[in-house]
């Protein structure tokens, strides 16, 4: 039952993508939207059935692999098209298809009357399929295929508004940076094939080198892929630009699912990372740097979607900290609650943007909350969950990560300090956004351009999905409350045992500090942006320029490549390659012109040449004999 259900779950979205693409313009736009929605929901139902099937198995035997055919054979190596359904992948399947179907359903209203709705829904279905392939794959090769395909669908969807040059540029940027990660990951897989001769998870984890340079290189290559996909330092610059895509795309791909694939990779391959503890610490350190940096940048951004994008980077930073410090189930739990509340934030933002003719600048959107009370409430819920105020979801998932850090020595404590500072920043930037956009008097722009949808804030398809996500952000966190009850940790324990357990006191300290600092951040935001007791400080240029990452990359890679290319053109191509070509042609031209004078048109001279040639040959042959 489990195997069948996982095949159905994987193939339904693919079938939808193919059907929508092949049907062309025959079905109406609405029909394609519903096909996409229904198949994604069908995939969710299949995932639930698989989950129920897993529940019926004993905890140690919840690993179901099913191979349809041998996908690739090369010499002694055979890689099957294998699906793996176990405790970890079922969690991801449920998140991807569950949140995915809500967001696709939301798109029915959001993308209504777009010119190319069908293309949008085909891409969305393709993305859901690719993401499922990534999480359901039974070996690393198939995972890499899914990894590349989510990059492709992300590229297609970021560049959905193809008439906008900035969207195309953002799509290319995302694709290139992800391709870098794909490459390092492929290198890691080559090393694994060389040293273990296979890529099946179980076999690789058993046979991989336990320590040494090779183990470090493998983990580093995988980390490169994870960092690029999850937009962590130093490959983070593509994510804010990816906000050029439609808002539901930002919610599904660039908040809830695809960008968390890096966390999934680390958790899935935790054995390989534990063999290279330096690299695993590096993952945690990169996560800490990212969460701090993204929080600082989010303070000064003026585009509402970019602020949320930076908060996504920051939250994934927490997940990297969790996974890097060995608290795998904490990271997965935060991944899940983050999918709820970040999708909620994006979709609520989408409601506001939809109502105000696509405007995303928070100065123009200011005060729109007064016109949209429902959006205001759900955005508040999302923000509270993001900051981690109990009883909203973020509290239950973020604090165990910080508590776990306390249990990991001085390195963990350093990261803990960064994490709680990040919690303060989260409160500050999240509520700066909330107070500016959703409280106070509406700006002239908002009043002028706001238009209600038949007297409501949005079409039904957008309202109920946002409502569901708001409910999940309220109660989703109650699934687990360490150290009192922890079904998720228990569920994941057979495949992802945590490296260290935080004591109750450490959990308490972490929670108190994180919540306290989060509240402090909210208070500062309130006093500046709502009560206006203090004037807003001047934005720091360093933050506004996003720590100059784009400029540095431009200088190093683009300018560097330009200099090298120009030098190659001037010193190699023009003199050597182009020069030698023209010399050859000139030589042939000259030679032929000289030779052509021999053909003078005098038949008798030809005859003479012929006769004398024969005479010479005769003499030569006679002499040679």
């Amino acid at each position, binding site marked *: 039952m489990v195997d069948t259900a996982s095949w159905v779950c994987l193939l339904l979205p693919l079938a939808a993508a193919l059907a929508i693409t092949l049907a062309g313009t025959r079905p109406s736009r609405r029909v394609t939207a519903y096909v996409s929605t229904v198949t994604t929901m069908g995939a969710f139902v299949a995932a639930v059935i698989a989950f129920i099937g897993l529940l019926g198995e004993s905890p140690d035997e919840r690993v179901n692999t099913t191979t349809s055919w041998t996908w690739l054979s090369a010499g002694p190596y055979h890689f099957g098209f294998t699906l793996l359904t176990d405790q970890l992948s079922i969690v991801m399947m449920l998140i991807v298809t569950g949140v995915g179907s809500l967001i696709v359903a939301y798109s029915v209203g959001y993308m209504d009357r777009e010119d190319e709705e069908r293309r949008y829904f085909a891409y969305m279905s393709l993305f859901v399929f690719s993401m499922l392939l990534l999480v359901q794959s039974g070996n690393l090769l198939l995972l890499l295929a899914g990894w590349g395909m989510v990059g492709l669908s992300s590229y297609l969807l970021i560049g959905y508004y193809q008439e906008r040059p900035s969207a195309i540029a953002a799509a290319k940027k995302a694709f290139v940076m992800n391709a870098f990660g794909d490459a390092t990951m492929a290198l890691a897989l080559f090393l694994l094939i060389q040293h273990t001769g296979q890529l099946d998870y179980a076999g690789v984890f058993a046979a991989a080198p336990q320590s040494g340079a090779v183990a470090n290189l493998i983990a580093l290559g995988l980390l490169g892929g994870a960092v690029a996909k999850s937009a962590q330092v130093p490959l983070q610059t593509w994510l804010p630009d990816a906000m050029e895509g439609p808002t539901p795309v930002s919610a599904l791909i660039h908040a809830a699912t695809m960008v968390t694939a890096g966390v999934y990779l680390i958790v899935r391959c935790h054995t390989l990372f534990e063999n290279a503890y330096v690299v695993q610490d590096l993952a945690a350190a990169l996560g800490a740097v990212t969460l701090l940096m993204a929080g600082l940048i989010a303070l000064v951004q003026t585009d509402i979607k970019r602020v949320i994008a930076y908060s996504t980077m920051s939250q994934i930073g927490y997940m990297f900290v969790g996974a890097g410090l060995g608290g795998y189930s904490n990271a997965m739990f935060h991944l899940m609650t983050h999918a709820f509340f970040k999708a909620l934030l994006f979709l609520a933002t989408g409601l506001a943007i939809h109502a105000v003719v696509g405007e995303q600048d928070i100065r123009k959107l200011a005060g729109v909350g007064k016109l949209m009370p429902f959006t205001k409430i759900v955005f508040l819920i999302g923000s509270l969950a993001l900051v981690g105020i109990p009883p909203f979801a973020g509290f239950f998932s973020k604090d165990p990560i910080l508590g776990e850090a306390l249990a990991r020595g001085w390195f963990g404590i350093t990261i803990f300090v960064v994490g709680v500072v990040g919690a303060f920043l989260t409160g500050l930037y999240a509520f700066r956004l909330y107070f500016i956009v959703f409280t106070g008097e509406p700006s002239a722009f908002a009043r002028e351009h706001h238009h209600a949808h038949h007297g409501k804030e949005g079409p039904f398809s957008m309202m109920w999905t946002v409502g569901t996500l708001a409910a999940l952000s309220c109660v989703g966190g109650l699934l687990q409350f360490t150290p009192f009850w922890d079904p998720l940790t228990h569920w994941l324990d057979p495949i992802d045992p945590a490296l260290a357990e935080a004591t109750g006191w450490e959990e308490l300290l972490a929670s108190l500090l994180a919540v306290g600092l989060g509240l402090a951040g909210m208070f500062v935001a309130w006093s500046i942006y709502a009560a206006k007791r203090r004037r807003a400080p001047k934005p720091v240029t360093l933050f506004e320029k996003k720590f100059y990452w784009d400029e540095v990359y431009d200088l190093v890679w683009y300018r560097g490549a330009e200099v090298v290319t120009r030098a190659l053109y001037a010193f190699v191509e023009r003199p050597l390659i182009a020069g030698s070509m023209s010399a050859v042609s000139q030589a042939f031209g000259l030679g032929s012109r000289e030779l052509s004078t021999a053909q003078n*048109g005098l038949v008798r001279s030809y005859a003479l040449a012929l*006769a004398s040639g024969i005479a010479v040959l005769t003499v030569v042959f006679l002499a040679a004999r």
Partner: protein
Amino acid sequence: MLGPDIQWYVILSALLFSTGALGVMLRRSPLIILLSVEIMLNSANLLLIAFSRLHGSEDGQIFAISVMAVAASEVVVGLGLIVALGRRHVDLDVDRLRTLRG
């Protein structure tokens, strides 16, 4: 074997061939050149037949007949060209018919 020895045939053939070759190289009229070519071909025919008789096999005679057939077709083409040139009142001098040059 009746008739003179083989070397006389060879000498006669060599004389005929030289006559033809000199004709091709020295004369200017296309008509004479064509004739000279025919003489060269027939000198070769003479050798073929002489050696055929010497060895007592018919291969050479068959070759000679083929050569004659080729020579006849050549004359048809060559004479046709010369007649066409003459009709257009072109000066029949191979040294002046040299438009096909590089």
